[in-house]
């Protein structure tokens, strides 16, 4: 374990800013991390966490995100993607990767036309075979065989990258499912394909379908379903619900769902969403004291540290961890859209939590605690005050923030008078309108009687 001495000294100096000085920032030790911040992102280690199609998808995503300015990492990612694809049967993806590489990795990594054609031929043959088998089963009307036939079709399409067809095939097995095991198998396959396709509404519906089966599910399956549900909520920006789902995942899952998600991801997603949306008590009970989730957090010690820092008001170090993680998180296929929002929410919560216990706060000290300038800090605070998240006023001359508690009595009087005036107005106009309608009605009824 290497202690990070450079960054801890300035933290010790901030005795007034961050409370507990003795413990301070010096105690933070960063254990050996799989993912190192900045451009030392270890692609091999990252990719080894996953298997199957998601590995390829993630590698391609990283390559896209890197762009041309970080070509070393880009090429590395593409090379690994190439190797992985060659092991499978997806010629479409193969062509894509070769285009992206564009010959930059030497002769080993160019278009292998022979291989493509062989794969396509094999695919044709297999498809025919499966088709024949399925027709045979269908004429025989043996439920189990038909189900297996459709399943095989689904697997076949999935391997070849035709996700839409795969999904349809899996869904067709529904009519031939007899036991709960079949249903669960169908749901899991459907969920897998939907996540790959990015259609998370299907994910949610199939998760609930799987959870509704009468038989008790085993731990691993439940955990998998929770992860899938959490992922769906994350993508639809329901961060609080996503956090709850991730936190409920059993640690026994381990790496068993790594065709979709790695345990490090569960820790990161769950930790960040919880930090952004939970209030203090929930954070303590559900995250910090949660023994199950602790197993996950051990895998990503930075997230654990940053949550603890936030809870104990060491905002500077918390924000520093966040900044270090940011580069890596932007390369994550599911999280990259949400990094900014989550980070903003966490920062706002930190600011609000900082000002909560005080009657007056010196903006100078607060700015150094958050490592920003006073004018930047003032802008952020003004936004929060206008949004009514902080009850305070700023003395811009002396740069002090004063807490302001609304005078309930005056407010009540004002409301009462206002309500009275409103009632007065409404009743008067109502009486007037009634009169008008009465006249109108009289006029009309008179004309009717005539």
């Amino acid at each position, binding site marked *: 374990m290497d202690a990070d001495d450079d960054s801890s000294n300035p933290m010790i100096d901030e005795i007034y800013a961050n409370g507990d000085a003795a413990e301070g920032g010096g105690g933070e030790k960063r254990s050996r991390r799989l993912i190192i911040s900045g451009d030392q992102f270890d692609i091999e280690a990252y990719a080894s966490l996953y298997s199957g199609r998601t590995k390829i998808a993630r590698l391609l995503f990283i390559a896209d995100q890197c762009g041309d300015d970080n070509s070393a990492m880009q090429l590395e990612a593409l090379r690994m993607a190439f190797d992985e694809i060659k092991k499978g049967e997806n010629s479409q993806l193969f062509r894509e990767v070769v285009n992206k590489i564009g010959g930059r990795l030497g002769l080993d990594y160019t278009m292998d036309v022979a291989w493509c054609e062989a794969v396509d031929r094999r695919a044709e043959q297999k498809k025919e075979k499966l088709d024949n088998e399925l027709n045979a089963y269908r004429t025989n009307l043996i439920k189990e065989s038909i189900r297996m036939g459709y399943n095989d079709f689904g697997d076949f399409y999935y391997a070849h990258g035709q996700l839409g067809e795969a999904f349809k095939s899996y869904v067709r097995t529904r009519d031939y499912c007899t036991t709960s095991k079949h249903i669960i198998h169908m749901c899991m396959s459907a969920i897998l394909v939907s996540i790959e396709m990015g259609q998370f509404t299907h994910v949610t519906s199939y998760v609930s379908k799987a959870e509704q089966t009468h038989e008790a599910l085993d731990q691993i399956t439940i955990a998998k379903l929770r992860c899938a549900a959490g992922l769906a909520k994350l993508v639809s920006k329901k961060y609080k619900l996503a956090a709850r789902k991730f936190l409920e995942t059993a640690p026994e899952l381990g790496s068993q769902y790594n065709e979709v998600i790695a345990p490090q991801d569960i820790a990161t997603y769950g930790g960040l969403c919880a930090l952004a949306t939970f209030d203090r008590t929930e954070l303590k009970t559900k995250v910090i004291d949660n023994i199950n989730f602790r197993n996950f957090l051990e895998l990503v010690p930075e997230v654990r540290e940053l949550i603890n820092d936030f809870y104990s008001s060491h905002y500077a170090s918390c924000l520093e961890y966040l900044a270090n993680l940011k580069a890596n998180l932007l390369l994550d296929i599911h999280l990259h859209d949400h990094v900014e929002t989550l980070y903003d929410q966490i920062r706002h919560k930190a600011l609000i939590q900082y000002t909560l216990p005080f009657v007056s706060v010196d903006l100078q000290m607060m700015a150094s605690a958050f490592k920003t300038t006073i004018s930047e800090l003032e802008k952020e605070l003004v936004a929060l005050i206008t949004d009514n998240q902080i009850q305070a*006023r700023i003395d*811009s*001359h002396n740069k002090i923030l004063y807490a302001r508690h609304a005078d309930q009595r005056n407010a009540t009087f004002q409301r009462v008078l206002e309500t009275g005036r409103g009632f007065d107005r409404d009743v008067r*106009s109502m009486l007037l*309108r009634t009169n008008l309608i009465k006249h109108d009605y009289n006029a009309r009824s008179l004309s009717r009687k005539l």
Partner: protein
Amino acid sequence: MDPLEALVAQIQGLSSTPGDISRLHVILKQADDSLRSESTRLSPVLAQLAPSEHSLGFLYVLDAFTSGQISKQQAETTVPIITGFINACNAEQIRLAPEKFVLVCKRLKDQVMMLEAPIRGVGPLFNAARKLQLSTEHLTPLHSDFLLLCLLAKCYKTGLSILEDDIFEVDQPRDLFLYCYYGGMICIGLKRFQKALDLLHNVVTAPMSSLNAIAVEAYKKYILVSLIHHGQWQISTSLPKYASSVAQRSLKNFCQPYIELANIYGTEKIAELEAYVQTNTEKFENDNNLGLVKQVVLSMYKRNIQRLTQTYLTLSLQDIANTVQLNSPKEAEMHVLQMIQDGEIYATINQRDGMVRFLEDPEQYKTCEMIEHIDSSIQRIMALSRKLTAMDEQISCDQLYLSKVGRERQRYDFDDFDVPTKFNI
């Protein structure tokens, strides 16, 4: 005897007791046509009659006298006659022939406008309206003419005194539209924006079967005053459900530029707002709303400064100028000073440091005046509630209502077997 002479004698003779007056009324109605035919001979007749005692007769003769086309010079002589009559006449007598009275007053209005001296008609019409009203809650056709003259003569305060009365009874819906519209304009002129909003709201939400131009114009002003006073306007919550369906559907279509203005106001970008006003100046000018629109722009600055009072305790004038997008601290100082004087914010300006210190509303709600104010508000609302209940009772006894309800009753009502199933009145 000359029929005219005979009539004059009858008027003079039968104007003392109510019984006589009703007989006189009948006679006058019969003689109406003949009076009209002899309009040229009527001015000496008028001299013989005293407006205060023989009001009814005077009125009929006056009506016949002024019924023809009147030129400008003639107007010079007739205006004082009518004015004198209105000031002196007897209220009960003229209430017997309200339409004639209204007609005469309208002619006064026309003549006064022809002479381009609307102020001459303000006083007389005020008296006329007061005399014609059955109660202070009654609206007469004269109210709208009176307000029109006030507007033209710029005597806003006189107009305001009539507007202070609440109106609950209306004879003709059309009177109400004009009354509320002109009333709204007078209140805008006096900067009583809340009252203006109430009046314009009445126009816009009044029951109407088809759209009329007054409602459209009123809606435009309603949007603008709403922006100035409340600082917001949402198209979705604009017209409440009780507004007529015609209004809800079609008013928007005629007021497009104003709705656009309101949307831009909602985005809180002053530069955009000013640019929009610049490009559409002509449209606003055609509707005579340019002054109001300029006030809308001004109100945006005010609102931004008010928002600052919520977030800052002290702020330098330079910062205020920057935040609110004014050009210089001097301008900011002028704005803040104006707002302090108008009572819109509570602050002190420290000129040495160039700082403004925002204070809390000093109203503590502990003074005697405040208690009295609250007490009178409570009394007022209780009176209103009583009125509401009374009206409810009145309607439930109303013949038309009962006949309609009776028709829709169920054939068999378990609770009251002995009640007839159908009301036939």
